[in-house]
């Protein structure tokens, strides 16, 4: 039996697939990160729901709590640790301060390749006007 040619061809394909991220990534400067823009409105209106570093990791958890609270318990008011009150709403609260969804939410999500399905139903008030 002499199948060396076939075996080597298989190996070459395997190695090429394994190394493909390196070929495609060579020379790119995408290690810089997404750099989301905090809009002027957000800065003016004050602090986010949590600290900034917490927000980056926990914002989807808060949105999940809000959604469950509104849809299941009809509780629409969220009180932060330091006593501030927020209307639990994706479009009306988050996007009220962060009125630059493209340069904020989307920039991060595109970088990390996450596609939240929220926008199938929820709107970005800016885009409607």
């Amino acid at each position: 039996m002499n199948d060396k040619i076939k075996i080597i061809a298989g190996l070459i394909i395997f190695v090429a697939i394994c190394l493909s991220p390196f070929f495609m990534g060579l020379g790119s400067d995408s290690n810089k990160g997404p750099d989301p823009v905090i809009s002027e409105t957000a800065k003016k209106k004050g602090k986010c729901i949590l600290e900034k570093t917490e927000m980056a990791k926990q914002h989807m958890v808060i949105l999940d709590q809000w959604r469950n609270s509104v849809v299941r318990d009809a509780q629409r008011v969220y009180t932060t640790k330091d006593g501030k009150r927020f209307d639990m709403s994706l479009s009306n609260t988050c996007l009220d301060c962060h009125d630059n969804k493209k340069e904020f939410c989307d920039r991060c999500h595109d970088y990390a390749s996450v596609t939240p399905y929220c926008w199938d139903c929820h709107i970005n008030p800016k885009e409607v006007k």
Partner: protein
Amino acid sequence: MNLNLLFSLAAILVLGCVGYFVPNAGLQMFFGVILPYIAVLTFLCGVIWRVMKWAKSPVPFRIPTTCGQQQSLPWIKQNKIDNPSTTTGVIIRMFFEIFLFRSLFRNTKAEIKDGDKISYEWEIFLWVGALAFHYSFLTVLVRHLRFFFEDTLLKEKLFFVGIIETLDGFFQIGLPIVLISGFVLLAAVLFLLSRRVLNPQVKYISLAADYFPLLLIAGIAATGLWMRYIERVDVTAIKQITLGIVSFNWTSIDVMKSVSGTFYLHLFFICTLLIYFPFSKLMHAAGVFLSPTRNLANNSRMVRHINPWNPEVKVHSYESYENDFREKMIEAGLPVDKES
């Protein structure tokens, strides 16, 4: 407790401590960048070395395992998949073996019943566990491609990554959305481990080389789930590290320091797996393609297979014998084929 299991557990514990505590002592660069390069290089070179070693070994005879009627007289029905005599048959057989683990499907267990009677029973759970394990592992692996390619490329060319992630999150539970494959992977690997621990016969034939990879993969799955659903690490920072690795344009040390120890533990376990892979039984991933008991057609009765390393035999044919001794033969009155 079984010594093989104990040894594997201890090894995982030591590796775990190294992976969790050492990187944060200022060695992020080594554990986050240099070790992954070493691991990928070792993995690829090791796999090539192992496969080439197999490619060099001669396969002088056809040794397919026959699991059905071989090709015979026209009125006897051949089992064309389990005893193939053509290349097409072999390809179909290999397809079932590689994608559906057909030979595991036939797994049986022997048990002594009613005191002295031995009975063989079909045992399907090894096959189910193996399928769940391998396919969830594949799904997890494909999903992780999102860390190694830029988004534009993922959206334009590698859209199957997104499709698989959407299917994986089909039930849309929670946020970040629950991706089922990770949980299936951990459950399946724990099930396969429990077989080796709880079933006395299987335990008897299990070595450290069986327990260690299972525990290692369980560790990888558990740290991954922990990061996504419990600790919630900073995914953008981690993508900066992974894209930095593949572009040879490493991210800043501040970003590397901001990432939690669990990530380095996860990465360290993966590097261990990659380095361990070529030298272990995990090479069955390549071996399944090269197993002569599966990938040869059972055609010994139709095709003459000549042993490639048969020595050259010097023959003295009758014709040349007669050429050498013709005159003497004619003198002695012996019959010859050719006169002069």
